[in-house]
């Protein structure tokens, strides 16, 4: 068990694509334990991707059960070789990243997604999630393709009408 060092931009390695996991072995599972510990050590972190700690494999962890304001969630998810297959809706939300300290910005993400991923034993699962958790999954999966939320920033200004709720309470 160990808290791993987080790479921070401008480390160029964060901009590279990661390769799929091929061996679902004990070494992988030991890494998952360290990765989880690293995620939980970061203040307020609800997700982490393996390339953030310098392992360039398609591994993502997400846990939105621990947010300040509770949101719909699937608890702790180990997502290996995740593939997002469906996107629905769009929403602006604020994101930050352990690899980009001292900055948060607005990013548009799909509100609902469907995706598949393997767990630590190599078993394939299908997921559907929404809102904050869907945002976390999309943010982490971006890391696997060398994308940061900085690549998707939208203006802080003038999103009043884009965000408008079309139902009066």
């Amino acid at each position: 068990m160990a808290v791993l060092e987080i790479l921070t931009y401008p480390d160029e390695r964060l901009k590279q694509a990661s390769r799929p996991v091929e061996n679902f072995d004990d070494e992988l599972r030991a890494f998952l334990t360290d990765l989880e510990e690293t995620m939980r050590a970061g203040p307020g972190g609800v997700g982490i991707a393996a390339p953030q700690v310098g392992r360039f494999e398609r591994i993502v962890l997400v846990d939105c059960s621990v947010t300040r304001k509770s949101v719909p969630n699937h608890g702790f998810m180990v997502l290996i070789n995740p593939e997002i297959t469906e996107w629905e809706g769009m929403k602006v939300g604020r994101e930050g990243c352990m690899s980009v300290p001292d900055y948060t910005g607005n990013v548009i993400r799909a509100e609902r997604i469907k995706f598949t991923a393997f767990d630590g034993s190599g078993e394939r699962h299908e997921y559907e999630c929404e809102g904050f958790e869907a945002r976390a999954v999309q943010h982490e999966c971006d890391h696997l393709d060398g994308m940061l939320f900085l690549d998707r920033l939208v203006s802080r200004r003038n999103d009043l009408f884009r965000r408008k709720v079309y139902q009066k309470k």
Partner: protein
Amino acid sequence: MKHWYMLTVVGRDRPGIVAHLSAALYDGGCNLGEASMIRLGGNFTIMLMVEFDGNKSALTHMVEPVAESLGLHLHVDRIEAKLHQHLEPDVRITVYGADRAGIVAHITGALAEAGLHILDMDTSVAGTEAKPIYIMQIEGHAAEGVEALQSALDAVAEQGVEAQLETIDTMIG
């Protein structure tokens, strides 16, 4: 010894202001920090953190010629400042309505009393000259919680403006 200065620059808007000004600062050995730059009412306005190895008058003398050539007013303050001092907003408030005197004072007064610390605010007057509308967007920190702000906002919204509050739930991944 390097110091931080706040440059305030205001003048009739035209293309190239930022490019010319920042080139002069760069050539003069300055390092730029955070900035807010926006066109307001046909003027271009700049608030810019500048780190400079020299005193206020040296910096003013350096920037003055380029400011004058662009028709800009320049003001320089030496400030106590540091980078990496961001406070994260946890609430966003948008207000709009028919423009009239007192909207900002009433709304921000009520919100300040309910614990709002404004971190970022911009306002526009849109619509037409005959029927202007006022639009205000605020991001801030709710020191006494979001409920207190919501009730303050509900009270002022009865005075004929549309007001919305939403929490900013920053996703850290």
